[in-house]
């Protein structure tokens, strides 16, 4: 085979995929929306124009929208805009980190299962089948509560060894049980996808070449197989994010997820739902932010999947 000297002659898989994605208006709009949302939740609160989400303004309790409080205030006079942005920070953080945890577990499990093959593969996949049949949310609840104590030890350890103040690390480290519990139970679909891809790539000539050159299994797996399936897997991972965010907010809503002083969109919606007769804004704003983010994540995930894997498209 002769390689054409003209670089623009052929389109790579990724170039094609990007072109297909850019043509999908819903996906592009979702991408822009998500970038704005991430900036709003993580960067905007650094500026002084956003109030402290826990500071109470007792002159303005349950106030309506105004210049000082664009979304109004809650029953304790806390600025709702600030609370929604800080809540989004926690919700997005849990969504992203738990997905990364699920991604890592699923990737390693699927790679191993597909590469080793044979009986090990059958056993590992049967295990996934069994785990699939378990009621996910029930286990997440029990698991996240049961690792609360070890994670408090973790907080103490971090405070002791890094010199950071407890106030600065506790809010993030308090989320560790949620990261682990949701991630540790959300990797099943990913493991299946990784395994199928591994099986397909394993029989390619370049893997055979690598093997006949005497490369170690380790290098074949992570140097040759993993990079080639990463793209597809990352796409399916983005499809998992909305589900994971929904799990987090469901837990927070029933009071078993994010706790005070932290708040996520789930806890804000809970607070809003309790007072929606008097002040419907308290429900409307967090719910709007949450639903729009999920919507954008779904559209983007669908668009990415259609772009990279047009055959699996539902249309």
């Amino acid at each position: 085979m002769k390689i054409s000297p003209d670089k623009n002659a052929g389109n790579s898989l990724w170039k094609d995929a990007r072109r297909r994605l850019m043509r999908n208006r819903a996906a592009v709009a979702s991408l822009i929306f998500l970038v704005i949302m991430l900036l709003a939740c993580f960067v905007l609160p650094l500026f002084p124009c956003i109030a402290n989400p826990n500071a109470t303004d007792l002159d303005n309790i349950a106030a309506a929208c105004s210049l000082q409080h664009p979304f109004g205030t809650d029953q304790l006079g806390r600025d709702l805009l600030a609370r929604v942005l800080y809540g989004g920070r926690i919700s997005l953080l849990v969504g992203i980190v738990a997905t990364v945890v699920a991604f890592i577990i699923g990737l390693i499990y699927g790679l191993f299962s597909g590469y080793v093959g044979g009986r090990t593969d059958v056993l590992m996949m049967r295990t996934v089948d069994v785990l699939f049949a378990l009621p996910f949310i029930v286990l997440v609840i029990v698991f996240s509560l049961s690792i609360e104590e070890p994670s408090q030890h973790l907080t103490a350890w971090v405070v002791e060894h890094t010199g950071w103040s407890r106030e600065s690390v506790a809010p993030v480290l308090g989320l560790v049980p949620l990261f682990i519990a949701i991630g540790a139970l959300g990797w099943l679909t990913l493991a299946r996808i990784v395994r199928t891809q591994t099986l397909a790539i394993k029989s390619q000539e370049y893997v055979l070449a690598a093997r006949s050159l005497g490369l170690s299994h380790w290098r074949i797996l992570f140097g040759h197989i993993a990079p080639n399936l990463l793209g597809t897997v990352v796409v399916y991972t983005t499809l998992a994010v909305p589900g994971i965010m929904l799990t987090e907010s469901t837990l927070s809503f029933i009071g078993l997820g994010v706790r005070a002083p932290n708040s996520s969109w789930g806890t804000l919606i809970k607070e809003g739902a309790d007072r929606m007769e008097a002040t419907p804004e308290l429900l409307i704003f967090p719910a709007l932010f949450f639903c729009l983010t999920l919507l954008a994540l779904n559209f983007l995930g669908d668009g990415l999947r259609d772009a990279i894997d047009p055959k699996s498209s539902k249309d």
Partner: protein
Amino acid sequence: MTRLLLKRLLQGVLVVVVLQTITFFLVRLLPGNPFLGERKLPQHVMEQLNSLYGLDKSAWVQYLNYWKGIILHGDFGPSLVREGVQVSDIIAQSFPVSLWLGVLGMGIAVCIGIPAGMLAAWWRNRWPDALIMLVAMAGICIPAFVVAPVFGITLGMHVPGLSVAGWDNPLCAVLPALTLGLINAAYIARLTRGGMAEVLSADYIRTARAKGVGAGRLLFVHALRSGLLPAVSYLGPAFAALITGSFVVETCFQVPGMGLHFVNATTDRDYFLIQGLVFCYGVLIVLANLVVDLVLVALNPQLRSQGAA
């Protein structure tokens, strides 16, 4: 066919055992214990309570005793928090409530989702399709815990007869079931559309059309059977999703079902009640998946000849 059934049953038993084992050891790791009530109990009372319920034995002994109780006597142990109440009594009261709610919700989901999906597939890529899919996407993105309070305040307050909380008359089931049903209808509609759209573009449908088969007969007789496959295979997971939804819906509408008991039991650290309820959830999900498998085999002759899938 019998082999498939046996295989699935065996797998189901395995699922329940694994689930029960994981839960058993996880609940023992929960911080706190069931006897930490309003006032602190003296040390010797605590020890007495622990030995009364057998919680002072090693975890393995407790684990074996627990299974012995279930298999020999069908006994899930006492509730540790509500004195004198057996876990099996709580389940006997709350299970029918949750089941009824689940069946109603599933019924609503199927009755709305499948016709909507069929309509969308029939008018594929035209405005009814776009409209239905937009509504379905919204249904997927608006979680139960937003729908429930909104229904409570709009329908519950203004439609006479409907109640927003409790479980004392049959109309109490309307709002919770509607909430559960609409959310699952969205998923079912999307899957039905996908399946039907694929079938409707198949050669045999074109042939039937060319022979002059009418729209109704084409949709319901020729396409429906294989077009429904994706939606039917989702019904197993959908049942699990109904359970997830039931935590939220039962909390919002104060319905005394298993979800509400489960949430309370985890906050109270009522070990035996958590285990008993998880057992029930496991059995329910296994049965739901089994039924779905059988329906799939009935719909898809290819699976029947394979015998195992």
